[in-house]
């Protein structure tokens, strides 16, 4: 098979056979000894695009800060519109926003906007930012019917009321209704691995990515993640595109490193993901990805733009680490058994506790796979305002 890649990250010793289930809080009986072999099967004969990750501007991350962009938890659409325009011009070096967007989007494109509604309504991709992105894409001549806002779970999209808040004519798609429902995924594009002895060992790529859209604008949020360390551009694409991913966690262990990066290398996801716009209006520094506890959600009013998801997530990781230091919370890199709790309520009220040994190393692992730059010294990080 020409395009099929077969990756053996390492050899597994003896993984414990555990109960089959989707609940990530099922606990592992013992520490997994190593990362198991992971088989990646991309779309056969797919021609990679030069726009694919790390894209046109590797290592470049534009950060626009504007405190007034979010006031009392309300996002200002006019201000985020200006922030987005500034970010796009700075990212591309173009003089106009239209020219900047035209680097990535053509009028004939079918554009997918990958939101992150996980954590809604407290922290999700702001409808105000999504509206500005839609407006920018439409200004290039892309008709509304060729713009699809999507994520995996319809009920999470519903919680954020995207359906009512986004412009008429565009499609809003939840790939699946709930955890257990099937359909919406491609049987020939997948990641296959046995992490904890689970019965279903494959995670399939969403059909909407494989068959419907030809460009993806990724709109992650700025959040800590109890398993992966942070959830940013990489995780929003990987775990938001493939199904059956909760199986990669068995408290307190997680294989988000290296799986997140590996999933992002699978075609056509890699080639179609041409632009990443991170919504940092809110920043979850503990309790992610689902917390609704406002004490752990700052409102810094940040917007990041990049084509390199690794560089973007590296900046995000630094930002959340900084906030945690300021709040006296342990580093995301800390692997102290005393900080692990089985009690989700304790986790949701105590920033020193966590459910998993976090895996922020998934970002550097993605860099090793060629998805971008994780070395801070090499990242062209420009902090601007409007």
């Amino acid at each position: 098979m020409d395009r099929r890649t077969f990756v053996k990250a390492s050899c597994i010793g003896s993984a414990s056979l555990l109960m089959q289930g989707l609940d990530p809080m099922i606990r592992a009986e013992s520490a997994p000894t190593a990362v198991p072999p992971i088989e990646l099967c991309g779309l056969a004969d797919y021609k990679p695009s030069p726009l694919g990750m790390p894209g046109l501007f590797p290592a470049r991350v534009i950060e626009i800060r504007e405190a007034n962009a979010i006031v009392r938890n309300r996002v200002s659409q006019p201000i985020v519109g200006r922030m987005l325009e500034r970010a796009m011009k700075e990212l591309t070096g173009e003089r106009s926003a239209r020219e900047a967007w035209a680097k990535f989007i053509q009028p004939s494109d079918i554009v997918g906007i990958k939101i992150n509604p996980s954590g809604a309504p407290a922290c999700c991709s702001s409808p105000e930012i999504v509206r500005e992105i839609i407006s920018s894409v439409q200004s290039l001549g892309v008709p509304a019917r060729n713009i699809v806002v999507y994520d995996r779970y319809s009920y999470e999209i519903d919680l954020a009321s995207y359906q009512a808040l986004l412009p008429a004519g565009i499609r809003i798609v939840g790939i699946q209704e709930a955890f257990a429902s099937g359909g919406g995924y491609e049987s020939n594009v997948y990641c296959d691995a046995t992490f904890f002895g689970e019965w279903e060992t494959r995670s399939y790529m969403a059909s909407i990515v494989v068959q419907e859209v030809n460009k993806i604008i990724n709109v992650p949020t700025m959040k800590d993640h109890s398993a992966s360390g942070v959830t940013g551009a990489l995780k929003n694409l990987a775990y938001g595109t493939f199904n059956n991913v909760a199986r990669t966690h068995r408290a307190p262990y997680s294989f988000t490193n290296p799986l997140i990066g590996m999933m992002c290398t699978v075609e056509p996801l890699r080639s179609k993901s041409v632009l990443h716009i991170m919504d940092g209006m809110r920043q979850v520094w503990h309790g992610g990805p689902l917390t609704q506890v406002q004490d752990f959600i700052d409102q810094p009013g940040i917007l990041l733009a990049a084509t390199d998801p690794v560089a973007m997530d590296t900046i995000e990781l630094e930002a959340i680490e900084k906030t945690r230091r300021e709040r006296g919370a342990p580093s995301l890199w800390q692997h102290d058994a005393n900080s692990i709790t089985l009690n989700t309520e304790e986790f949701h009220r105590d920033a020193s506790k966590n459910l998993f040994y976090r895996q922020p190393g998934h970002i550097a692992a993605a860099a090793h796979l060629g998805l971008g730059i994780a070395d801070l010294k090499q990242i062209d990080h420009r902090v601007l305002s409007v």
Partner: protein
Amino acid sequence: MMRQTGNSKAVEDWPTLLKDNARSGGQTPQPARSPERAVWQFRAGGSVRSAPVLKDGDLYVISVAGALHAIDVVTGTAKWKFQAGGQVHSTPSLFADQILFGSDDGKVYAVNHDGTKRWEVPTGAEVWASPVIRDGVVFFGSADTKVYAVEASSGEIRWAHELGGRIYSTICATERQLYLGCGDGKVCCLDSSSGRVLWSTATGNGIDSSPAVVDDLVLIGSEDFFFYAISATTGEVRWKYETGLGIASSPAIWNDLTLFGSKDGFLYALETQTGKLRWKTRVGEVVTAPPMIGDGVVCIQAGGTFALDTSNGKILWRAGLAGAIQSVPVLAGETIYLASLSGEIYALR
């Protein structure tokens, strides 16, 4: 309102979501006692987001997958099933011998009580709002931004009027006016005979909530975190009340109180005339469903089912079943019917 049709059969209007502003769903108020056991359980074969409705011993439930089930409430068995052409998020409405609902295929369906289709009417996008019926005319909004008026007997379109955004808000129809919220953030009042906009009032963000109309007040929540009371006559904002997050939940009215949930996780009870907070109670992390009023009890689904004392907000009981985020329990005599996101329908007693 009762009226006589051509065949002299008494036909009751269904002028807003779940029939009336108490969100009664066709039932008289019930005491909503704490359930102790499941009488039966029915699998709808897919998630259920909308609210069940009850009439003449049949419970009508629609799964997101588009299957309308008529369930015998005594036995918990299906009498028949009707399959729509798309997914369904719309709570059904009842009119005469028809069940009406919208679908993601852009159609509103009218289904006879024997499970056969009477008519369907197409729109340009999905219909999540519930159709409402007044004086033989069906009114509904679509995500294609239009409000439609359709003959209930035939499905013939009387008029369609375009607004400024997607419509997910269920209309409240009074004798001559239609009230609804719009995705562009406006609360609108339309003339029901022509669709002409009589007034519109802007809020700070889009609207997913459905209004109630009481004593010349239009009561509705907005994604701008505020709950509004607006003059039904002029569109002037009489008062507004700020919650912690957006409001998708539609209000229910009980005596002098307006009850609704917010995405901040609280159920609120405001004095209808003044907007003064009477009580608020945290019932979950997020509340988007409308409340249902029983006899001195308000029930709401928010990751579980909660029953609260309407006078003081004290939680009387809670049931861990039925985590549907948008559904509404049905109270009938000693029985409570619940639909869940996982697609289970429970009859509890």
